[in-house]
């Protein structure tokens, strides 16, 4: 199979071919027919995305190991961790839900962040290899399944619901979690998968 040069790009949503021209600084090139983002202006993103993905990993460890929320009602106190929900769902017989929640809130983000950090570090040193390309492919596939921000919103709705019948206090992990979402969004936004593919070739 013959590969085409990198001077031509196709739109992933409507398949129109475009000659690759430099995108405006800090901007993006859009498909002239359907408006999809084709590519972004090149930036040195590896150093920043290495730092951000390592910081996200540290915050993810804090968010999963520290206490998350405490529930007080009529003198009874219930402290819980991020994984308590997974445990309780499994105990109630909903092991498929438990597995799903564990996957999209811990496993998928953790693996994606590790692979992003690895790929960024390799880009910084100018390394390229087949396993790096596979790491990048898996990291990109996991992207839609890392649902931390949806989880935080679900937790907030839960807290508001319970706040009416009892006292819910926020523990350190939830703040780590909030910070994690901000840092991870920055890591995701800065990571240019197209440029990484070109550099790993």
């Amino acid at each position, binding site marked *: 199979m013959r590969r085409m040069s990198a001077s031509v*790009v196709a739109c992933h949503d409507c*398949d129109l071919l475009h000659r690759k021209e430099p995108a405006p600084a800090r901007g993006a090139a859009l498909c002239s027919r359907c408006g999809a983002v084709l590519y972004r202006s090149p930036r040195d993103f590896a150093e920043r995305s290495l730092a951000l993905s390592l910081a996200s990993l540290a915050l993810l460890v804090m968010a999963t190991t520290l206490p998350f929320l405490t529930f007080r009602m009529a003198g009874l106190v219930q402290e819980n961790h991020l994984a308590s*929900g997974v445990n309780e*769902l499994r105990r109630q017989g909903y092991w498929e839900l438990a597995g*799903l929640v564990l996957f999209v809130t811990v496993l998928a983000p953790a693996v994606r962040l590790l692979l992003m950090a690895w790929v960024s570090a390799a880009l910084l040193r100018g390394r390229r290899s087949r396993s790096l390309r596979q790491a990048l492919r898996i990291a990109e596939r996991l992207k839609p399944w890392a649902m931390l921000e949806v989880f935080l919103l*679900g937790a907030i709705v*839960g*807290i508001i619901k319970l706040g009416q019948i009892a006292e819910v206090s926020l523990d350190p992990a939830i703040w780590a979690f909030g910070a994690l979402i901000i840092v991870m969004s920055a890591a995701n936004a800065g990571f240019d*998968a197209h440029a990484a593919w070109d550099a790993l070739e």
Partner: protein
Amino acid sequence: MTTAAEAGLAHCLRCGQLVRWSEPPAGAECLCPRCESPLSLRKPDSLRRTWALLLTGYLFYVPANVLPVMRVIYSGRGEDDTIFSGVKVLFATGQPAVAVLVLFASITVPLIKLVGLTFMALSVHHRWDWRKKDRTRLYRLIEFVGRWSMLDIFMISILVALVKLQALSTIEAGPAAVWFACVVIVTMFAAASFDPRLMWDREAR
């Protein structure tokens, strides 16, 4: 205005590589030379897979909304909550903003996904020629918004962990939670198997 397919090129959707396309022998599969993902001119069996997943999604949507999504046991008395009754309770207790948020994430978004994808699949079947750009925008919206309907599942996982004060008060997950999670996952796969480029192909299918 030439498309990659018209120029005889296959576009790898995983890494963006363009490859001179030649049909592989029956039973064989082409891999992208750069990222080694399966390669084809259009997503394989796109319409058939999308229809199958959509049908499954519609079927699961019914028990997801009819059966109880969680059970609140308060001083020995149990009360079932469906997705919709949970929203009504939020409205009744003076939390309209949160109620609208949950309504949107758990009821509107799954419906938009199912109906929107059905509409787009129909538009390819019948080779409609109008407002392709808007239909492509709708596809991008559906792809983006899908994950947010997981909100209810996460809320339940928080509630069951916090409220387990034995005799006083307990919250249990209900069977609808599983159906609902299935709707979210099936529609995510349906969106991924639909190929928006089919809407632009003159000789659709």
